[in-house]
């Protein structure tokens, strides 16, 4: 029994576990169930961003945009266009939902993948700071475009989405995402991603098509983010473009960095940790026996998040499970290196 078999067995076990848990999920408190669902969604988001940021080294700050595209596309599909399919399957039943929902999610994912393609192509020649700002810009542009699209509600948001998301679907997708990403990175083809991250010029020199890998990373990462968005839309039943802003992108980035860029187990763990922390902070804000200032800081979770980010970078930049970043002895990549600026060149 080799590694590949172990992975496949693990995937199967995860799917079975998710199905069983989902069957009994009616017994859990509705609030806890919601939190567990969010954990699953965040795992998918963090893993997909890890593919772009951690494994391929493309620092993307616009992941919330892909999630938004997936959320809106799948919501639109399930609200407006699923009637025909349901009719063909004999009305709305558990069985027909189990056919329609994955298709709707897939639709959302494909739409997001398209967005990933559009974002990935101009990003090919950009590095570091420029890539970060351009992806941030794309995230904002996507959000503004959704806000200006009245067909999906515009600034008022999109409501009335059917609540198809269950524990099973969320964790099945999460397990699948992890399986696909890990399998791909472990494969011979997948080594290319790591090469692009480590030294792009050397990669080109040995014949790796960096263009293809970068675009693939963006498209795949966006696809899974889109599916996560679809799952999100079908559990909150109301989405608004302002919920998919830079703040959300940063939260996902923090999960990836905390977990250690380039470690799927790490980012999954960090996703769980941060989601739970976020919810816990909500409670802390409600504890009356704490001094008022502590409560107010807990209520402003972004202050804590930003301090965590700074502290992480100062004290442990590799995150919890990652490897130490290439030290500046390699020369080229630190701030105070050599004469030339590293603006993108022709």
């Amino acid at each position, binding site marked *: 029994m080799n590694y590949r078999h172990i992975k496949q067995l693990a995937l199967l076990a995860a799917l079975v576990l998710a199905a069983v848990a989902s069957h009994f999920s009616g017994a859990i408190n509705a609030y806890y169930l919601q939190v567990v669902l969010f954990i699953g969604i965040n795992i998918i988001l963090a893993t997909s961003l890890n593919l772009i940021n951690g494994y391929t080294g493309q*620092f993307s*700050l616009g992941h919330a945009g892909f999630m938004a595209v997936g959320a809106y596309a799948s919501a639109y599909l399930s609200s407006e266009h699923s009637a025909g399919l349901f009719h063909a399957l004999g009305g709305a039943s558990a069985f027909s939902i189990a056919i329609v929902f994955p298709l709707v999610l897939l639709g959302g994912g494909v739409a997001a993948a398209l967005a990933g393609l559009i974002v990935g192509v*101009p990003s090919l*020649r*950009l590095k*570091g*700071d*420029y890539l*970060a*700002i*351009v992806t*941030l*810009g*794309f995230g*904002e*542009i996507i959000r*503004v475009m959704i806000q*200006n699209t009245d067909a999906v509600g515009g600034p008022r948001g999109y409501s009335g989405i059917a609540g198809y998301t269950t524990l099973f679907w969320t964790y099945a997708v999460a397990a699948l995402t992890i399986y696909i990403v890990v399998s791909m990175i472990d494969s011979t083809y997948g080594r290319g991603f790591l090469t692009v991250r480590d030294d792009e*010029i050397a990669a080109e020199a040995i014949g790796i098509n960096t263009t293809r890998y970068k675009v693939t990373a963006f498209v795949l990462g966006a696809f899974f983010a889109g599916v996560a968005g679809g799952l999100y839309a079908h559990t909150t039943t109301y989405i608004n473009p302002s919920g998919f802003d*830079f703040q959300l992108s*940063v939260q996902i*980035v923090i999960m990836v*960095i905390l977990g250690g860029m380039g470690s799927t187990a790490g980012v999954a763990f960090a996703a769980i940790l941060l989601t739970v922390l976020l919810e816990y902070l909500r409670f802390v804000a409600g504890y009356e026996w704490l001094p008022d200032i502590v409560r*107010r*800081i807990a209520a*402003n979770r*972004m*202050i804590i*998040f*930003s*301090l965590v*980010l*700074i502290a992480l*970078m*100062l004290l442990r*930049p590799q995150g919890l499970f990652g490897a130490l*970043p*290439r*030290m*500046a002895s390699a020369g080229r*990549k*630190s*701030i*105070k*290196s*050599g*004469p*030339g*600026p*590293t*603006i*993108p*060149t*022709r």
Partner: protein
Amino acid sequence: MMQFWQQLINGLSLGAFYALIALGYTMVYGVLRFINFAHGDVFMLGAFCGYYLTPRLLPHFTGPLAPVGVTVVLVATMAICAIIGILIERLAYRPLRRMPKLTVLITAIGVSLFLEYAGQFVFGADPKAFPELMPDRALENTGALTVTTTQVAAFAVTLLLLVGLTFVVKRTRLGMAMRALSNNSTAAALMGVNIDTVISFTFGLGSALAGAAGILYAISYPSIDPLMGVLPGIKAFVAAVLGGIGNIPGAAVGGLILGGVETIVAGSAYSTYRDAIAFAILIIILLFRPAGLFGKVQVEKV
């Protein structure tokens, strides 16, 4: 046609703010090869400095002394912002000088977020009305165009600061040290330039300009809130890239161009995309002329 000239005038005054902020970005990049994400938030802090200082300082300068009072507020804000900039550099960026650029980039994002949300926490998230520093009237003799006193003041102060900055960069020893550092940091260190001091000075200078921009902006658009620095910060970055990052006159020109374009878009049929136009310009510039208008085209040697 008159509409166009009017838009141009409005655009130039908006461009003046972007130019001031862009100067800070470009100077820090020239010296450190790093985009200081938190720069836009120093701009915001400048506006809030003005908000808190004005009611305390301005009443002391009544009547004809009022312009002196305004200048005092401006200078005080610039000093405070310079100190804040230097503090940020010492606490957050200096320990990471040997680390890969990605680490510092993430730290800069963290500092930016911290300033924004701590600002919300300390100042309150709701927008505040900036106190009136100078009367805002339209000038008399301009014919069909409307030019307000605030526009003139903003433009004049920007011009003054630009001249001052050029003087510092070209005629003082510290300015020469800045240029040396941006050209070749190792050689500069070997020539006896104190890297730490010069970097601190650069940050201080850039932050002072951002603080001034904050006050001027708040005079023209008197509603301030802790998140006001995000969008102008990003747009000023685009302006700096447009002009050629690392190039000081380029940043000024880039700011003016961006301000003009944005105002024209805002006045046209596509006004909802006025914020997106900056990103569009960024993408176009990075695709077709990454060195910017005035930058040197660098060939990457392998």
